[in-house]
């Protein structure tokens, strides 16, 4: 081995260590500010989802094979607490990066309510999807959040 080989190999080792550190430090880190709790009464959650309006601070979204319900309509610049829950099996809520500047991806355990702070500044339509395989029609499980002025 020549002298420059030692230098290059040392650099490779440093980069590998850095990546290893990044991997280890990412372990167990959940999405920022997301909290969760078990749902004791599902019909209450369902009622909240069916009777909400864009003026409410708390908004509700239900995941089930293979749809999101209801289609959310929000006001641009308003702060919300998004309550998401799965009615049947594991799903994952994914909101595209364009909505808040950072993509949101939360794994949903059945009958557990996940509370996600949400504020979208720009009006428009933002795609939401399921990123956890949930059955043969998993890829059709898409919807959107409509944000108006």
């Amino acid at each position, binding site marked *: 081995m020549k002298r420059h080989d030692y230098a290059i190999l040392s650099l490779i080792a440093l980069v590998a260590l850095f990546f290893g550190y990044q991997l280890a430090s990412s*372990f167990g880190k959940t999405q920022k500010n997301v909290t969760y709790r078990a749902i004791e009464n599902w019909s209450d959650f369902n009622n909240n989802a069916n009777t909400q309006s864009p003026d409410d601070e708390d908004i509700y979204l239900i995941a089930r094979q293979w749809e999101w319900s209801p289609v959310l309509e929000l006001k641009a610049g308003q702060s919300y607490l998004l309550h998401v829950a799965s009615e049947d099996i594991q799903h994952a809520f994914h909101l595209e990066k364009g909505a808040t500047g950072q993509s949101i991806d939360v794994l949903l355990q059945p009958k557990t309510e996940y509370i996600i702070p949400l504020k979208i500044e720009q009006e428009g339509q933002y795609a939401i999807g399921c990123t956890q395989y949930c059955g043969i029609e998993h890829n059709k499980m898409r919807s959107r959040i409509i944000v108006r002025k």
Partner: protein
Amino acid sequence: MTLKQECKAWTILSVGALAIAGVFALLLVLSRTPYVQDLLPWPWTSFFHKGLVVHVIFSFVVWFLATMGAVFTHRLVKHQAEQTFTKLGPVSIGLAVLGCVCLMIPALFDLGTAELNNYVPVMNHPIYYAGLIFLFLSLALVSLRQLRLLDASACCAFIYLIACICFLLAWYALPAELAEPSFNEQLFWGGGHILQFVNTALLVLVWSAVVKKRLIEGPYEWAVFGILLVFAGSGPFVYMFSDILSQANRDFYTALLRYGLPLPSVIASVFLIRFLLFEQNEHKDRLMATALWLSLLTYNLGGLYGLFLDGTDTRVPAHYHAVIGGINLGFMIFYHRIVLPFIGIHPVNGRWLTLQYWFYGLGQIMHASGMFLAGLQGVPRKTAGTAQGLDNIDKILSMGLMGIGGLIAVVGGVLFVVMTLNWIVKGGRIHETA
């Protein structure tokens, strides 16, 4: 059975797997064709998803694993005479063939239900699971044999065994009452990610084999395979520190690919570029250089696309189609330049052989790039018709590029299967001389 015959058997199994995948792709098209679909002996509505499972498992899992068998056997010959008898050969090949038959039965006899989960799609039927066990066990035996070489291929074999351990740990940890889609997804999630380390290691092994010299100098080769091994080795431990159904478990494996694969891939690619640009080699001809350049380019393009993933748009398939395409090109030239001559078959150099690589390579690049551009504009993956939301000319052009590229790549893939199987069939038997 000699090692040479075992190598031939793995070759037939791997290329045959692509042929079976092609037949099922044709059946899938027929099952969606009005009037023709009614002539099929199966209920076409349920056959579509089952046929899709068989197509994916043969074109991806069986093809890759059987090629691993060929790579390992060929490597073993370097340490032992090619006429060395192997008791393990017939057992592992027999198990793999039995596994492949079991993998097809549920689709052909309309048994169970299909799941298109990540990495190893399944059919919820005991025969299919038995097929997977036979297949994975077969390659586990071959991998155990490879360990004694204590070289780069042994590293690859060890990573494969780690993937198998992850499958077993997941199976042990999963609650039996879990819904089938979640069960199958989690069963293959961890091990499936580790298999991507195996695929990367295999690509580096075939690149090295094709150039017929030590592509990566000693310490750098150990760096490449050592990094792959250390990162993959963390896989099983995650089951001890996190609930298998938790977000921590799920996200760790995604991060494992992000942090574990780029560095070994970059090092190996730099050495291949150095070889292609600067080194004179008696074996380096135009076809080999073309195939290696295309493999290098397609694979790294896929890696680059992987840096821009976000959720559920077509950037995700763009990433993995390009990566898999790059690996496939490496496998193709490995068969044509190394394995076929080794088993006594000499591919005919000519226009069609060269065209096959250009078709497959450029087709995959166009296909993946079209998907990537469409994904940047938010086109959702795995959708058709109005669900794609192709509401502007950029999206339409991107998806058009994807479609045309896909067709060209299919032509390249079909040419590979037809030509290679034709040469193998005409090549005749390998007689046991030892």
